C-alpha cells in the first residue's frame, strides 16, 4: 500500500503555527502603538502638570494684583490724608508753625446797635504753641511769623557769624546787597 501525503491547500493558522513563527513586523507595530499610547499618556500628564502650574502661577498673580491694588489704594489714601488741610494744619502745629488770622478775619469784629453790652471781639485768638525749644535758631526757621520783639537778639550761630563775615568782605552795591544776603540765608536754611 502506497503511503500518500495529503497536501494542505489552505494556510496554517497562526495559533497552530506557534509564537515563534510571528513576523517581526507585528512586534514593531505593537511597540509603535505602545509608544504612541505611552507618549499620549506622558503628554497628557505633562499638560496636566503644566496646567496646574500655570493655574498656580495665575492664582499667585491674581493675588499679587489684588495686593497691589490694595496697596495702591492705601497709598492713595495716605496721599489724600497728607493733602488734607486739616492734617496739614495738624502737622504744621506739630512742627511749631503758628497760625495767623485769615484774610478778612479781623473784620469780623462787629458791634450791635441794639445790644447794650459791648460786643465781644470776634477774632479768633491766635493760639500760641509751646514747644520744646532746643535752640533759638530753629524757632526762626520754622515759623512763618516774624519773631516777636525781643529785648535781646538770639546769639548767632557759628554759621550765621560766618555768613556775616562773608557778606562784609565784599561790600556790594545797594541793589545787590539784599539779594546776596537773601541767597545766603537760603543757603543757610538749606
Amino acid at each position: 500500500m502506497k503511503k500518500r501525503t495529503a497536501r494542505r491547500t489552505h494556510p496554517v493558522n497562526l495559533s497552530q503555527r506557534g509564537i515563534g513563527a510571528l513576523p517581526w513586523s507585528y512586534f514593531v507595530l505593537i511597540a509603535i502603538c505602545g509608544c504612541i499610547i505611552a507618549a499620549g499618556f506622558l503628554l497628557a500628564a505633562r499638560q496636566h502638570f503644566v496646567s496646574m502650574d500655570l493655574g498656580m502661577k495665575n492664582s499667585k498673580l491674581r493675588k499679587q494684583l489684588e495686593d497691589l491694588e490694595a496697596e495702591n489704594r492705601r497709598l492713595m489714601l495716605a496721599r489724600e490724608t497728607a493733602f488734607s488741610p486739616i492734617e496739614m494744619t495738624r502737622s504744621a502745629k506739630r512742627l511749631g508753625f503758628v497760625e495767623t488770622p485769615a484774610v478778612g478775619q479781623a473784620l469780623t469784629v462787629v458791634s450791635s446797635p441794639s445790644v447794650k453790652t459791648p460786643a465781644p471781639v470776634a477774632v479768633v485768638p491766635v493760639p500760641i504753641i509751646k514747644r520744646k525749644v532746643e535752640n533759638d535758631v530753629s524757632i526762626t526757621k520754622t515759623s512763618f511769623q516774624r519773631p516777636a520783639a525781643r529785648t535781646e537778639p538770639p546769639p548767632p550761630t557759628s554759621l550765621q557769624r560766618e555768613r556775616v563775615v562773608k557778606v562784609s568782605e565784599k561790600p556790594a552795591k545797594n541793589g545787590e546787597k539784599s539779594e546776596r544776603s537773601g541767597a545766603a540765608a537760603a543757603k543757610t536754611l538749606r
Partner: protein
Amino acid sequence: MRNARPKRRKKENTRQIAFTRFMFIVAFLVIWMGGISARLVHLQVTKHDWLRERAAGQRLDIKKSKLPRGTIFDRNGRALAMSLRVKTLYADPVEMSDTAAAAKAIAKTTGIREKDLAKQLFDAKEAERRFVPLLKGLDETTVQRINRELDDPTVRKADSPNFTGLHWREEQKRSYPYERLAAHVIGFSNAEGVGQAGVEQSQNDILYGAVIKRVQERDRLGRIYDETVSEKEPPKDVVLTISASVQYMVEEALERAVTASQAKAGTAIVIDNATGEILALANFPTFDPNRLSEVTADNLSNAAVQQVYSPGSVFKLITYGSALEKKMFTPESEIDSGNGTVEVGGRRFSDSRAYGRITYTKAFAVSSNVCAIKTGMKVGREGFFQTLTDFGFGKKTGIELPAETNGIVRPPQKWFGDSLASMSIGYEIGVTPLQMTSAFAAIANDGTRVQPHIIKEIHGPGGELKYATQPEKTRVVSARTARDLKIMMREVVVSGTGKLARLDGYSSAGKTGTAWKFDEKLKKVNSAKYVSSFIGIAPAENPAVTIGVVIDEPKVGGRNGGQVAGPVFREIAERILPELKVSPNSEKVPEGDTEDFPEFTVPMDSFPSILGGNDLTTTSVAGRPEGPKTENYAPSKGKTNEGKTGDKPNRKDEAKKIVAPEPAKPKKSDDGVVSRPRVAGTPVPSQKRSDALTAPSKKDKKDTEKKKAKP
C-alpha cells in the same frame, strides 16, 4: 504500541490540568472584575452625589468677597471717600490642640492679654465655635509683621499665618481722608457698606460693591491651581462739583463765625452761577465720618437742604424782582414809605424809622419793610405766587442729596389777609438755604435759573466717563430785570445794610436778612432768636459765584445779617475768588466806611410764623401762633422797636443811625420826564444803568472829586 498509550494519557491529563487551571484563573478574574464593576456601579450610581460633594469639598474652596465700594472724588480729583481692604485675624480653636500654648504665642505678638485670650479660646473650643476674631481692621503692613512673628516652621499650611488655627479674613473699611470736610455732602456708610447719609446714601446703587463668588480648586497642599470668579459689574466712582479747597475755606470761615457769635448753627453755600454747580456746601456744627460715635442729631442734619427757615429781608429780592418783571417800576422810580408804617389785614408793619420818599434802589438798600410790602401788594397774590413758583420755592431743587425738603409755600387760597404783606418781607414762608441761594444765583446768571447740583460726573472703574450731569435751565426773569436787581443789590453793599460785605479787590452785591424765629414755648416769634443771613454775588458786574451764609441764633456781637453773615461772605469771597482764578476788578475797601444801617426794624410780634418750632430745625407747618393783638404791634411815640421787643436801645448805636434823606424835589426835563436829584447811594439814572454796577460809592466819588480839584 503498548508504550504509546500511557504517553497519550499523560499528555491528555496535562492538557486537562492546564485547561482547568486556566479556567480557574479566568473565573477568578471574571469574578474579580465583576466585583470591581459592581462596586464601581454602586459608587457611581448609588453614592454619586455623596462622593461628588466629598471630592469637591476636598478640592474646591468657595469664597465670597465684596468688591471695594466706589470712590467719591471732588471736582479736582481729590478722593473724599474711599474703601480700603483690611484684614481681621481670627482663630479657629477647634483646629488648635493646645489653646493655652497658642494663646501664649498669639498674645506675645498681638499684645492681647494672655489670660483673657486663653480663656476665650478655651471657651470657644468647648462650644465648638470656629470663628474667634482677635484683631480687626489691620492694614497690609501690620498683617505682614504678624505673619512673620507668628511663623511656625513645623506647621505646613497653605494660607498665612503659618500657625495652626489662625487665619485671615478680608474685609473693607471706608475711609474719609479729609475728615470733617464736606461731611454733610459726602455722608457716611455703615459697616455693611451701605450708605446712610449724603452722597453715600443717594448714590448707594452706584457706589455699592457687588458680592462676587470665587471657586478655587486646591491641590493636596492647599495651593490654588484653578480659580473661577463670578463676574459682577464693578462699582463706579462719583465725582462731585465740590472743590475741596473752596470747601475748606468756607468751612473755616463758617466755623469761626459761628463760634465767635456763639450761634446755634450756620450754613454756607457757594454756587457757580453759570453751571449751577455747588462749589461748597458747609454746615456747622459738623462731624467726622471716620468717627461715627461723634454723630448726633444736632450735627447730622444737612440744614442747607433739609431744614427750612423764614428768610426775612433777603426775600425782598423776590418781591422787587416780581414787580420789576411786571415793569411796575424801575430802580430809579420813587416810592413813598410814608411815616414808616403800613397796615395790612389789620396788622401793622413798620420800619425802624420813616424814610419818606425814596427810590426803590434805596428802599432795597436800607431794607425798608414798608416799601417791600407796598411793592408786594402792587404785584398781587397770583403774580407773587407765580414768581415764587418760577424761582423754585415750595418744591425740591433736585439736588442729589437725601431728604431734601420742599420748603413751605402755601397756595394763595390759603393765605390770610396779611399773608402777602408778610411774604413780601420774607415771613409766612419756609425756604431752605439752598433754595434761597439758588434764587440769587438765577439773578446773577441774568435771570436763568440753572438747577443746582452736586454730582458732576460718574466714572467707571477704569476712569471712563459714564454719565455727566446736564442741569435743567429755566428763565425765571428777564435779563433786564436781573440787571436791575443786580444794581439794587450792589447798592446794598455800597451804601445799605451790607457794607461789611464789601470786598477787597472785587466788587460785590447782595442782600442782608434778619428774621426772628418762632418760639414753640412762647407760641410766637422770639425777639432773642434770629436767623441772620447774607446772600451775595461777586464780582458784581459779571458774577462768578453766589455765596449764601445763614447763621442761626447768633448770641454775641451783631445780630443783623449784615453784621453777622456779611463778614463771613466777605471772608469766603475774598479767599475763594483768587482760588477760582477770578481777576480782581475793584479797589480796596476804604477803611472806616463800614457804617451799618439798622436793618432789623420790625416789631417782634408782627409776624406769625407758619413754621412751627425753631425755623431751622423743623419742616412741619404750624398754625397761626397766638400773638398779641394788632394794636400792640404799633410802636408808640418815642419808642423804638427794640423797646417793644424788650431790648433796651443802645444810645451809642442809636446815634450812629443814618438820618433819612429828605425827599428830593423833582425836576422836570425838557422832554417831560420827571427826574429827581440822586439820593446818596442810589445808582445813576437809567441811561447809565449799565455803568451803575461799577459806579463808585459816594465817598469814593468825593475823594475823586477832591483829587481832581487839586492842581
